[in-house]
């Protein structure tokens, strides 16, 4: 099925949820409201003609100047029908949260953890939402656009400070 056909199917069912449809180099992006994301995903996964059985990727994007600051991009593919659709959930800056799609695609588990780790987006109903790439006690969300590249100025990572205390008596370490 052509991606735009899928969008029409989606429109006929969830017209009020769809905020925007865009196309770039034959790839179709559908932006939807975040409230009914798990219904939409269930529909896309279960409908026999669409059958998006493969969640290729899930990631966050940050647009500080937009009304909806964050986007969660669901990269859906059907191995059976060989078609792709990019779904985007629009998420506001205050209380950034969206329903988890782990019940639909088990593979979303770590991708959602990473999006939470990097952007601070909370996935409701996620079975194990912890930081994944950054240390557990890390402060801030590194991939947000307002997070400086070299980390917050004049602050050392807490774990490193603890390490310095631990080895303060140890002349061989010689950390100042």
């Amino acid at each position, binding site marked *: 099925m052509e991606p735009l056909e899928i969008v029409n199917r989606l429109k006929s069912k969830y017209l009020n949820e769809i905020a925007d449809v865009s196309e770039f*180099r034959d790839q179709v992006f559908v932006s939807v409201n975040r409230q009914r994301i798990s219904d939409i995903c269930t529909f896309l996964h279960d409908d026999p003609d669409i059958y998006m059985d*493969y*969640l290729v990727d899930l990631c966050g994007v940050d647009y500080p100047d937009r009304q909806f600051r964050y986007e969660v991009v669901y*990269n859906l593919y059907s191995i059976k029908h060989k078609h792709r659709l990019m779904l985007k959930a629009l998420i506001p800056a205050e209380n950034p949260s969206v329903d988890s799609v782990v019940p639909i695609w088990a*593979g979303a588990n770590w991708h959602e953890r990473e999006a939470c780790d990097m952007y601070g987006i909370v996935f409701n109903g996620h079975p194990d939402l912890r930081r994944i790439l950054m*240390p557990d006690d890390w402060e801030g969300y590194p991939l947000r656009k307002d997070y400086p*590249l070299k980390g917050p100025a004049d602050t050392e990572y807490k774990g490193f400070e603890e390490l310095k205390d631990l080895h303060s008596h140890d002349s061989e370490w010689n950390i100042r």
Partner: protein
Amino acid sequence: MEDTNIDSRKNNSRVKEKELTLSMGPQHPATHGVLRLVLDLDGETIVKCTPYVGYLHRGVEKLAENRNYMQVLPLTDRLDYISSMSNNLGYCVAVEKLFGIEVPERTEYIRTIVGEMSRIANHLLWLATHALDVGAMTVFLYCFREREAILDLFERLCGARLTVTYPRIGGLKNDVDPKWLEDVYAFTSEFPMRVKQYETLINKNRIWLQRTKGIGVISAQEAINWGMSGPALRGSGVPYDVRKVTRYGVYDKVKWEVCTGKNGDVYDRYRVRMDEFLQSNSIIRQCIDQIPEGPIMADAPKYTLPAKDKVLTDMEHLIHHFVLITKGPQTAPEGELYVATEVPKGELGFFFVSDGTGKPYRMRVRSPSFVHVSVLPTLCEGELIADIIANIGSIDIVLGECDR
């Protein structure tokens, strides 16, 4: 302590008493990098496995947002450092699709050749370490002999063995010379015989069979649901290969088949990779037979670097080179695009959000290893602790790519 494990499993109340938590890694030779697994054990059976990743996190995605498209290329070498050529190719193909560049035919052929060489080199290292982990030391030494040969060929081609950075956006760093192609051809004539040699070492080895058959079984449906890709997915019998569904390289001009397994266990994943050796070998041979003459850089001066000899002799080209390297292409189209390529470990995808400046607004790396590590608990829970080694080997992970 005289109780056997089997006895303790029958009695539930005593199971709890005996549960043991074991932290495996981050420094453990069989975890292929810095992966830490916290295992809850009942005797030797794994009750729960929790992977901890992130020890190699270098923030490639954040770095990419602050570098231009040309400067991101060397970062991709450091994702999957076992087969960096494939990662470079994946990045270049993605950026070219974003910019709308068509690369010349000769380049497509050379890229396919080096891509498949990199697949062979990766699978050789995989077979070597996987067999070593499971206890077959000899295979390790034989595999490294051939891997060295490929790395030497890479060195002759571009000067580097591991972090090659050979492809460029819109083309390649340099053309190949006929002698090099001859030597690759000579390698491929000999290689199928080598594969047979490895197989004689382990195919009928009872220990190998016992440790791989029926271990870490995952069904096709589950594997798809988890988002597995590459040989790990094909081992479960799903004939999904990005090379067949996305157009890049010359995979549509040569004859080859997608190798699949049936049972989705460690053994089938091993078989898939062994079959891929021969497929890749045949692809390289066909490419060398068909390779046409022609330019190696695309005719898109706004996006591609000028030839080095012109940069060194001509002022305009020098300025052009300087601007592209320091500021990036200033006419990049605005848009979002996901492009995937089949790297040896699975589907490597780059998702770009471009805002029209020389830098990617957002670059997402969809790495196969990250997904495969997340499947690890499903594969090994309920099995013996010794099997976790076989499982880690069979999904072929590299933590540099997992943690990015």
